[in-house]
């Protein structure tokens, strides 16, 4: 079981991206596994808005509520990943971190459990980047730590100059990891997925 952890601040488009990624992985799988992709949702709040939507999109979905899987629910994260691996044995587990989680922390936990590859993809919101970085100067940079790749989502909502400013800002924070602009709400071309997976060695 390979694991992809989707991190990034609240509203960065993780769920929209997750649906597209999960569909791509499912449709391009040549394995005979019954479960190509299982989704694990982590919500810091007490109710999940997305799980019904994901389940009705056809994906086996598990949830961790009322806390953050990188700290307050770290024990449950490990147990749930172990259970998903033994129950479903999927090709891929896609974990959507809560919007305030630090994905690198989750990766460290999951790497001790699974034998497959574990990668972190961190999404950022190009449109709100400056405002969020100004207001949340501790959380946002720490979410980028250890990212295998950073996606600048909502690139279509900013000008070319604005996008370059965001990319430049990210380069100063990301310690050389690949950074790709995208728009998860639009159809994502095949080449994007190929590049994404190759950039993170999957």
């Amino acid at each position: 079981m390979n694991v992809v952890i989707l991190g990034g601040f609240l509203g960065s488009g993780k769920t929209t991206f997750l649906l597209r990624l999960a569909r791509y992985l499912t449709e391009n799988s040549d394995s005979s596994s019954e479960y190509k992709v299982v989704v694990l949702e982590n919500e810091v709040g007490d109710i999940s808005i997305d799980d019904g939507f994901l389940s009705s999109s056809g994906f086996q979905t598990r949830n961790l509520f009322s806390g953050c899987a990188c700290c307050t629910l770290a024990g449950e994260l490990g147990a749930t990943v172990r259970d998903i691996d033994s129950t479903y044995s999927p090709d891929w587990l896609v974990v959507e971190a809560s919007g305030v989680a630090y994905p690198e922390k989750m990766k460290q936990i999951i790497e001790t459990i699974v034998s497959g590859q574990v990668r972190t993809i961190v999404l950022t919101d190009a449109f709100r980047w400056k405002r969020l970085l100004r207001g949340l100067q501790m959380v946002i940079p720490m979410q980028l730590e250890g990212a295998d790749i950073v996606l600048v989502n909502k690139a279509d909502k900013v000008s070319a100059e604005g996008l370059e400013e965001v990319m430049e800002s990210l380069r100063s924070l990301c310690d050389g990891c690949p950074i790709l602009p995208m728009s998860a709400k639009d159809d994502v071309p095949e080449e994007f997925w190929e590049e994404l997976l190759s950039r993170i060695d999957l």
Partner: protein
Amino acid sequence: MEEPAKQPCSHGHHDHHDCDHHDHDHHAHEHGAKEDIHSGVHVEARLHEGAVVASGEMRIPARNDGQIREILGHDMKALAAWVEKSDGIIGHIKASVETTRTDIYSITDCELSERTADAVMVGIKIAAIVYGVESDALLHRLETLLKHLEAIDTSARKDV
């Protein structure tokens, strides 16, 4: 790039900027919950890393769930505008609406009997994670939003 401003905190317990975030022990504080047993509206809020994490839900019978959906969207925009006006930062405001229609089929001899309810059950969930606003104020806003939706279409409750 301009100097980053301090992250606005919504409570007076302590300043989260002084926390050692490398240890990353999220600070979760239970704050408040309200349940109106007459209406079934349930809301609750707590603090997490300087954010107010609030949620609410209810299930109501209704004949016009389309109107509820439309007004929900309008009320969510009004909630977002209130956060902006309060100099808060929206983490996210998300809602889901689930409509359940129940039909009953029965056979006592050879005839199939079919009954369809003239209303649907509408389940509404809303979650808001917001920085820089008071927890109680956000809780009150969510409660008001849900009660507003509840009051839109009471026709299915008058005759049951």
